[in-house]
């Protein structure tokens, strides 16, 4: 955290009246932590194919994030590059060929699944990237979503069997690091995730859900970030970078109170809706997003029970 400001790797906290500069690229810590974890696991001989897939996906996405943080990638190049992060999963062949949905329906799609893996990684990485709207929102929601996927895997294991210890190896690689990152990124942020962090977190969720066959619970648990990305893209008419917005969706008063920008040029985002609902402090908006994500994470776990627990 001391190195980044000295090298001018800082971001402006735009939702504070005094616009403080905060160290950026906190995601580097997540990448370094996962590298150390996998190195230790490799030395003790407990690296599984699943763990390696998740690790490499995070590393590739994190590398794309580092490039984006330093050189600012083109708005179309970044999502395309994020698809590359799905390649380790395909190369190691650690993906299922069936997509299970609730009420005993599953789709046997071996060829289509190969195409869906890079798309799924691009969706999760960019959804978390676009959900980095306020202090702690992206890191907190990622932590909640991944924790719910661990519970969903427990549900799956208890009904259809599976190696829980293998999954815990993958989960322990990122969950504690996510918790630490959230601790420093929560309101008021001491460090920003940067694209390095948001892309790595999104990749971790995407890879985890694919490798352990938890796609449907992941879609449900990720509903809030996905909805936010969906509306931002629709209202802006396509992909965009925050820097090219003519008008920001949020206005900040001198006392730090936030309000929705009524201009038709401001994109429609979930944050704007939250402000229209009466939230006017960054801390409260962040907490509101956490509650919404928590509710969707719970729905994701319930969907896991409907997929593997209930027989129809």
């Amino acid at each position: 955290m001391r190195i980044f400001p000295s090298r001018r790797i800082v971001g402006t906290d735009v939702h504070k009246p005094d616009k403080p500069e905060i160290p950026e690229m906190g995601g580097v810590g997540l990448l370094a932590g996962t590298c150390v974890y996998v190195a230790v696991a490799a030395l003790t001989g407990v690296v599984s194919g699943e763990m390696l897939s998740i690790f490499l996906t995070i590393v590739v996405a994190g590398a794309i994030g580092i490039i984006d943080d330093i050189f600012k990638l083109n708005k179309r190049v970044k999502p395309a590059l994020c698809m590359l992060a799905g390649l380790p999963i395909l190369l190691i062949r650690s993906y299922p060929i069936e997509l299970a949905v609730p009420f005993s329906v599953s789709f046997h799609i071996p060829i289509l699944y190969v195409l869906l893996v890079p798309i799924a990684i691009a969706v999760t990485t960019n959804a978390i990237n676009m959900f980095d709207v306020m202090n702690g929102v992206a890191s907190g929601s990622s932590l909640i979503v991944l924790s719910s996927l661990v519970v969903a895997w427990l549900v799956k294991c208890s009904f259809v069997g599976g190696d829980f210890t293998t999954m815990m190896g993958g989960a322990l690689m990122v969950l504690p690091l996510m918790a630490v990152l959230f601790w420093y990124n929560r309101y008021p942020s001491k460090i920003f995730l940067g694209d390095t962090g948001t892309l790595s977190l999104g990749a971790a969720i995407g890879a985890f859900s694919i490798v352990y066959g938890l796609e449907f619970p992941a879609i449900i648990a990720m509903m809030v970030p996905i909805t936010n990305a969906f509306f931002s893209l629709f209202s802006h008419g396509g992909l965009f970078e925050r820097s090219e917005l003519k008008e920001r969706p949020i206005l900040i008063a001198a006392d730090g109170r936030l309000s929705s920008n009524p201009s038709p040029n401001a994109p429609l985002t979930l944050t704007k809706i939250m402000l229209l609902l009466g939230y006017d402090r960054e801390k409260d908006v962040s907490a509101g997003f956490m509650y919404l994500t928590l509710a969707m994470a719970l729905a994701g776990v319930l969907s896991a029970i409907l997929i593997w627990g209930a027989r129809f």
Partner: protein
Amino acid sequence: MGEFRAKSVLLLLIANVLFLTLAPRLWFEVLVVMHRVLVPIVGRDITSYAQALSTLVGGVMWLYVWREGFRRLHDGLSKRQTRGPGASGSSR
């Protein structure tokens, strides 16, 4: 954190989740009926195309309804804010 104000957003999200949970099963039943009815009339290939096309149309319609739900919520809340907290009744 005070009162949880995002109940309307939560309701829209729950509606979307319910749709995603129920729709695949219901749509599967519709595809089975389509298969049973159409195969003797138009053959297996055209039935498959019809099933794929109707699934695609259904997906696009779902995206439209999803977007409209949130857009209307946003527009309604914007109008309420423009009128002010004390205003009530018709603006005409």
